[in-house]
């Protein structure tokens, strides 16, 4: 069964009397299956956030339909098992983290019995236990992002929609959020992740839908997209002198075209994670 069905969604905005109509989405059709992690990839202004808001019933499409679990997305019922994390959330600064998540738990219809325990469990899951009774106004951006994730998950949603979940977060924080998203998949939840970072989509998602100027230009499994077909890469230890030539000859003798030799490279991000991680500075608070 499909968790989300998007059929021919078009959305036009009319910013003002003197400005031309802006078509933010143009005939987008998409299916997201239950239990999969779908990435929504596109540059800034491609229509990703607009599409998410239409899915959540926060915006009405100019044309087309959208359903969540078979229920039209503009119905309140459609959001019964949905958790949403908006881009760069800025919560009520005068509430504590606990109060905010409890507020959302109530609104989401969690049972009164065990509600506070559920809130505490979710807050622990996102690593904010030590800060949960502090005012949100004192939180860092990373902490707010975790808090946003907590309010999205407190109602035990089957569908989780994340809009730029690592926006403004350092690489360690981003990696932790990535782990949490992987955890959601393990739990069998459907995740719709919107990002302008291809690397993030590649690491976390099963499938990707690419938007450009409001049009869906591509949708495919990530693995298929990133496979360099018809080629095999070998990763070996440092070769002794002279061995490379022999290897090349052997491959050519077997009809395998030899393209070249590269020294494997890691990424600066990975070096950062390994360095900072090894210094043991993980925790709830990031400066």
């Amino acid at each position, binding site marked *: 069964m499909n968790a989300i069905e998007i059929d021919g969604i078009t959305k036009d905005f009319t910013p003002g009397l003197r400005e031309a109509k802006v078509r933010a989405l143009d005939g987008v059709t998409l299916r997201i299956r239950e239990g999969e992690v779908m990435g929504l990839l596109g540059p800034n202004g491609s229509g990703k956030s607009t599409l998410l808001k239409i899915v959540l019933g926060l915006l009405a499409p100019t044309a087309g339909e959208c359903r969540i679990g078979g229920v039209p997305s503009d119905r309140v019922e459609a*959001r*019964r098992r*949905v958790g949403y994390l908006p881009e760069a959330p800025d919560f009520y600064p005068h509430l504590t983290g606990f109060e905010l998540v409890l507020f959302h738990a*109530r609104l989401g219809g969690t049972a009164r019995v065990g509600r506070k325990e559920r809130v505490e469990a979710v807050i622990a899951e996102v690593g904010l236990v030590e800060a949960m009774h502090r005012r949100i106004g004192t939180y860092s951006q990373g902490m707010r992002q975790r808090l946003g994730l907590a309010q999205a998950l407190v109602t035990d949603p089957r569908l989780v929609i994340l809009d730029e979940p690592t926006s403004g977060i350092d690489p360690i924080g981003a990696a932790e959020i990535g782990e949490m998203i992987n955890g959601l998949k393990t739990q069998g939840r459907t995740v719709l992740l919107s990002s302008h970072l291809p690397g993030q989509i590649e690491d976390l998602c099963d499938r990707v839908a690419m938007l450009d100027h409001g049009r869906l230009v591509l949708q495919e499994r990530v693995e298929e997209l990133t496979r360099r077909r018809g080629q095999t890469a070998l990763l070996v230890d440092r070769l002794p002198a002279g061995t490379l030539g022999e290897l090349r000859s052997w491959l050519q003798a077997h009809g395998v075209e030899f393209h070249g030799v590269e020294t494997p490279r890691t990424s600066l991000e990975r070096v950062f994670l390994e360095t900072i991680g090894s210094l043991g500075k993980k925790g709830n608070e990031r400066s």
Partner: protein
Amino acid sequence: MNRVAFSPARVRWIAGNTFREAVRQRLLLLLIMVAATMTGGALFFSDFHFGSSELKFVTDVGFGALAFFGAILSIVSSAQFFFDEIERRTVLTVLAKPVWRAEFVLGKLGGVLLLLLVFCGLVTALLAGLLWWRETGLMKAHPGTFETGRVVAYAGVAWCGLVQWLKLSVLAALTLLVASYARSSLLAIMAGFVALVIGQLQYLARDFYGMMDSSLARGGVWLGGLLFPNFQLFDVADRVGAGETLSAGLIGGLAAYALAYMSVYGGLAVYCFRHREL
């Protein structure tokens, strides 16, 4: 899938959240301090030795402070707490839950009404306390003037505080209606103050429109008058200060009038918000 019914409990939680935000922003404390300063300032009338008339002056200054600062609190809090949700995008996280847009709007209104109730209650209680204290002093200084007992009708003072709350509640609902449609909090605040002035001048407009020559102008003024409530009806504080009593019929009528306008404005705010793109 089962329908999600309209939930008064969700309205209550949103209202409670709004009220808590107002209290923690210390907005209420600031205004209470200002109103208390004004009311306390009325004590300087004692230097003029006006006798029992001093109590009238204290009453008038107290309710004047309540009306003036209450209007500011009503308009600014209605607009600000609504637009804060939109600018911070917290409205998105709330409405992404199974929450009706009507529940959100009514919850915001409920929070502001609760804030105004506390404000009016505290200022009225403070005023009553000041009057009691001064009256006790005057009774000792001028026993002949008080031979029939205390002259201040404290029940009237309390009812007057309630009537002021009704007026400010209508004003809050009207401001929220504008906020639900407008694109900026400044516009909503300005509209709230304009509506307050127009509502206060209803008598003048209606009495003069009959003297206009142009039927078009008469029609325009008449129609315009229908759009706004008559806030002057709620100006009963000076009656209390002048020693008059408030009848149960008057209080009941004002309550019904206020409730009717709050219902209309609240309903229209829900309608506007349902058509608003977030």
